[in-house]
């Protein structure tokens, strides 16, 4: 059963409950016409049912994405702590009892259990409460309209990403034939939000951060799309399901699966570097370099807006890792006993853990280096990758039809 099928059943059930409610409301004030009845009529049609089902599917995708987001943030904290030889956040639900004793009037004793080591999941709750209760400051000299529009553009385009990538061929909220291009389009809206919020802050550092960010995102989008083009050529489609099916069916030596990472290793490297720059993680985080630019374009934002910026960045990271998994690591393909969704998440989390390791072990690179790397190194490499793919897909089969050649690809 697909996610959408399950959502359809849920929608049917909820419509069965909703229609009597609306019909009851229609009859409440007899002399006046009431839109409630009209709404009930619309719910009973096919369109109403589909709309309800989409509503459920998108909400489920959003919830799955948000849960993963919390896990990614938590993972980042814990792994960062371990790399720095700390333990990281340790307050979890198991420690609530001790805290409660402190709060209930007893003498505060900051002692936990002898062998206490929680997983630290309460740190996320504490962070959320902190962000919600902080004041939202808009600088007096800032441009109020763009100062509020910038976060809206950036965050909405990032949260939109959550509904776009499938976790498996059955767990997908959207099934557009141009799926991966839609994801890249959603990725490419963000620079406008970054630039406008950096400009509207009316602060030198924010503006420099915004301009660095725009230069970086624009120059890295070209090798990114070119390295994706190789995969699109092999699969002949933009659809994530088709791309993963193609990777699952093609085999290599000894019947091992030939995921796209093997024939297109250059493309994989280029893609990983570019997506790292696209989601602005270390070592490509110079738009928000803490030491030089005091958090760059997010300097003037406080409270929940800053938290949402952070959240949107992690969503972009998660979506980037998901795209890398679909394109190069075989998506949800994997041996049988583990369900495909779990395989997909395992691969995504491996990429994210790799990124976290990079974050805490590599220094930030300079602006001139970033542009040299983008235009002089990654662009030619991605073109070479496309040449290899064209040889593989077009030229070699053409000659095998004429001369007798061993079947390699």
């Amino acid at each position, binding site marked *: 059963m697909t996610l959408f099928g399950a959502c359809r059943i849920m929608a049917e059930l909820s419509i069965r409950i909703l229609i009597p409610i609306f019909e009851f409301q229609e009859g409440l004030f007899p002399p006046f016409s009431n839109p409630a009845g009209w709404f009930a009529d619309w719910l009973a049609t096919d369109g109403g049912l589909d709309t309800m089902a989409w509503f459920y599917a998108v909400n489920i995708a959003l919830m799955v994405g948000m849960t993963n987001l919390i896990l990614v943030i938590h993972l980042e904290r814990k792994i960062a702590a371990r790399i720095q030889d700390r333990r990281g956040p340790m307050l979890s639900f198991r420690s609530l009892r001790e805290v409660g004793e402190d709060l209930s009037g007893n003498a505060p004793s900051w002692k936990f259990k002898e062998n206490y080591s929680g997983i630290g999941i309460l740190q996320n709750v504490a962070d959320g409460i902190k962000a919600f209760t902080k004041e939202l400051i808009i600088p007096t000299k800032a441009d109020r*309209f763009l100062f509020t529009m910038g976060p809206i553009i950036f965050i909405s385009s990032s949260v939109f990403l959550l509904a776009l990538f499938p976790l498996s061929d059955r767990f997908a909220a959207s099934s557009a034939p141009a799926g991966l291009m839609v994801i890249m389009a959603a990725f490419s809206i963000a620079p406008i939000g970054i630039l406008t919020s950096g400009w509207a802050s009316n602060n030198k550092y924010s503006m420099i951060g915004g301009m660095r960010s725009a230069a970086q995102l624009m120059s890295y989008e070209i090798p990114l799309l070119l390295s994706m083009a190789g995969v699109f050529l092999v699969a002949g489609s933009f659809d994530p399901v088709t791309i993963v099916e193609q990777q699952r069916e093609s085999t290599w030596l000894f019947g091992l699966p030939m995921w796209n990472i093997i024939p297109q290793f250059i493309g994989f490297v280029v893609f990983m570097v570019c997506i790292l720059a696209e989601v602005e993680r270390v070592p490509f985080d110079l738009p928000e370099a803490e030491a030089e630019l005091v958090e760059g374009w997010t300097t003037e934002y406080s409270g929940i807006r800053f938290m949402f910026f952070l959240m949107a960045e992690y969503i972009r990271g998660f979506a980037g890792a998901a795209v890398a998994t679909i394109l190069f690591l075989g998506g949800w393909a994997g041996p049988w006993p583990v369900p495909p969704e779990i395989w997909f998440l395992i691969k995504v989390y491996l990429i994210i853990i790799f990124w976290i390791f990079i974050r805490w072990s590599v220094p930030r690179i300079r602006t001139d280096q970033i542009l040299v790397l983008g235009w002089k190194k990654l662009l030619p490499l991605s073109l070479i990758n496309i040449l290899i793919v064209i040889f593989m897909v077009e030229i070699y089969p053409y000659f095998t039809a004429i001369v007798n050649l061993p079947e390699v690809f």
Partner: protein
Amino acid sequence: MDLAVLVFWGLASLILASAWAVVNGNDIVHSVVWLATVFLLTACLFILADAEFLAVIQVLVYVGAISVVIIFGIMLTKRTLKGGEDV
């Protein structure tokens, strides 16, 4: 009236309103943001016309590249910080 026609007229009036805001804005950066809105809404029109791929390319090229280049160009020109001296 058909729902698609209703959506079309809604989108068309929104496009015209944002286009008006592009021309009549006081601040050039505001104008560019409204221009990006025009491009996005045009992409919505393409989706309404069942031209999904065209909509995606519209967003990628016009919103993701052209508007950003325009904003970038504006920001590279000389400007003053509000209430401050020249940058």
